[in-house]
């Protein structure tokens, strides 16, 4: 399986636990980095003042919640698309709501997919499986740009 990491941006620990369980139950064993809010996600991707980016390597896919403390999901997405290094990074919006305006805004800002988390955990597990299979296995990742 693709050794790429998954960046899970999710503030709700229950959702984190359930997502991790759902991924694991389908044998998706890739490393999952959890960012509990938008600021942490940006820190992970771009580094903060005085700190170099935690990883030289970009995640294979970002699972991005929208309603997040500090910096919300849309802003994170905007920053990812605005930066040369992360412009092509696959971003899947994984969130509770399927409000039309969120869907439209998400795609407008360049999300690769929009998935609504189902209440039914069985369905949720299925969705996680499909996501993992698709983005980590089926999808050919964009070439990683050289970092300055």
């Amino acid at each position: 399986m693709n050794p790429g990491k998954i960046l899970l941006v999710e503030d709700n620990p229950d959702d984190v636990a359930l997502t991790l369980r759902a991924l694991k139950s389908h044998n998706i064993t890739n490393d999952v980095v959890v960012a509990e809010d938008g600021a942490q996600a940006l820190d992970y991707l771009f580094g903060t003042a005085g700190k170099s980016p935690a990883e030289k390597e970009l995640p294979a896919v970002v699972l991005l919640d929208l309603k997040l403390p500090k910096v919300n999901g849309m802003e994170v997405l905007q920053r990812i698309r605005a930066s040369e290094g992360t412009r092509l990074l696959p971003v899947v919006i994984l969130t509770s709501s399927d409000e039309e305006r969120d869907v439209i805004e998400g795609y407008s800002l360049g999300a690769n997919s929009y998935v609504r988390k189902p209440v039914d955990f069985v369905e949720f597990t299925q969705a996680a499986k499909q996501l993992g299979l698709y983005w980590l296995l089926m999808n050919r990742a964009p070439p990683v740009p050289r970092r300055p």
Partner: protein
Amino acid sequence: MSVRDWPIKRRLTAILVSISGLVLLLTSAAFAGYQYWSLRQTTRDALSVRGRIIAANSTASLAFSNEAGARELLAALRADPHIVAAVLYDKVGHVFAAYPADVAGNAVPAAPGPDGYRFERGRLIGFQPVEEAGSQRLGTLYLASDLEAVYDTLRLSVVIGLAVMGVALLAAYLLSMVLQGTISQPILALAETAKAVSTRQDYSVRAPKLGEDELGALTDAFNQMLGRIEDQKDELQRHAADLERRVEERTHELQERNESLRRNAAELLAANTELDAFAYSVSHDLRAPLRSIDGFSQVLLEDYAAQLDEAGRESLHRVRAASQRMGTLIDDLLKLARVTRAEMRTEDVDLSGMARDIASELQRAAPERQVEFAIAAGLKARGDARLLRVALDNLLRNSWKYTAKRPGARVEFASVDANGGQAFAIRDNGAGFDMKYADKLFGVFQRLHSAAEFEGTGVGLATVRRIINRHGGRIWAEGAVDQGATFYFTL
């Protein structure tokens, strides 16, 4: 300045003076003519009398050819300075004696003319036969008199006449000056009043009435007219003021209404914004805990199934079912809120095509069911396609659901006549409902069936009604228990 432009005073005076002048002139002329004629008559009569006297006295001189006596006789005519010539002719017509003695031969006729007295070349002349009573003619007397006496008298008459006329004209002028006022003053007063009315637009002035004659009547009529104009003007002004007041009132009312509308709109906007924020928050936040409840129940079922007995597992299944139902409920409520908030885009909508799509969707989702769809062709409406689809979907899905236990299930979509207008009807032969609950059908969370009988959240028909209402239409239902139901709506 022509006479027509003269002030009326001057014209009246001129008329009066010229009429009196003309009358005086004519009278004087007639009198003078008559006097002239009567003076001539008198003069001629006097001369003829004088002629007859001299003729009578000269018979002897002629009969005896006494020239000296005849001359003496004629010389007596000196007493009358107007006798310019006198000649006594003998029987054969020769001059016998003449007066004055030195009269030029050509100044008197050489021979007597026809008898009688006449005016000739500014003189009065006469030939008087000289006869002895009852005997033959002895000769002829010629007398010539100037007319100075007549002219003197005439001149005097003319002088007197002119003097009288002058005095009379002066009197007429003075009198007319006084009398014309009775006519001109009311007219001038009228003119003055009319001028005041026209320049100042003041209809309250009145012309003074100076008598009961025709001018008085005219003044009365004029004043009456002014009064009527003034009344009408006042009324007009009252109407205008009334109108203005009413316009102001209406404007004020409209402004107030506008203001209240604006406030309402602002309130509505605020409410909508709030609802929007609320729905958004519900959409995100309310479902997350449900997911945890369902998820961790499943975790328990998967990882700890061995530690749980049948009752424990059953409880967890119930927890999961409940949280999922609540998820559906939240979704339905969000749909209802969305239907309220969504912006309307009006277009032509093919309801028949839409109904066919929904029917085949339902059929695909449950291929084991046998339901006959009878969808009339060509049903069209104007409205928001997305909202109308939600409404049709809810109604057809309802029919689909409530005919689940009916063999030979049939769902119909048609256009019907309702009070002269077009209505759409969705009819099924399913479970139906009791008409006494008909008014509860469209309320949120109102259900006429238990969840065990038929699943549902009680939000669908509320959503449909809201959509129909937003289109300005009406929705109602008819049915009977186990006899099926018909839902009607207008758009």
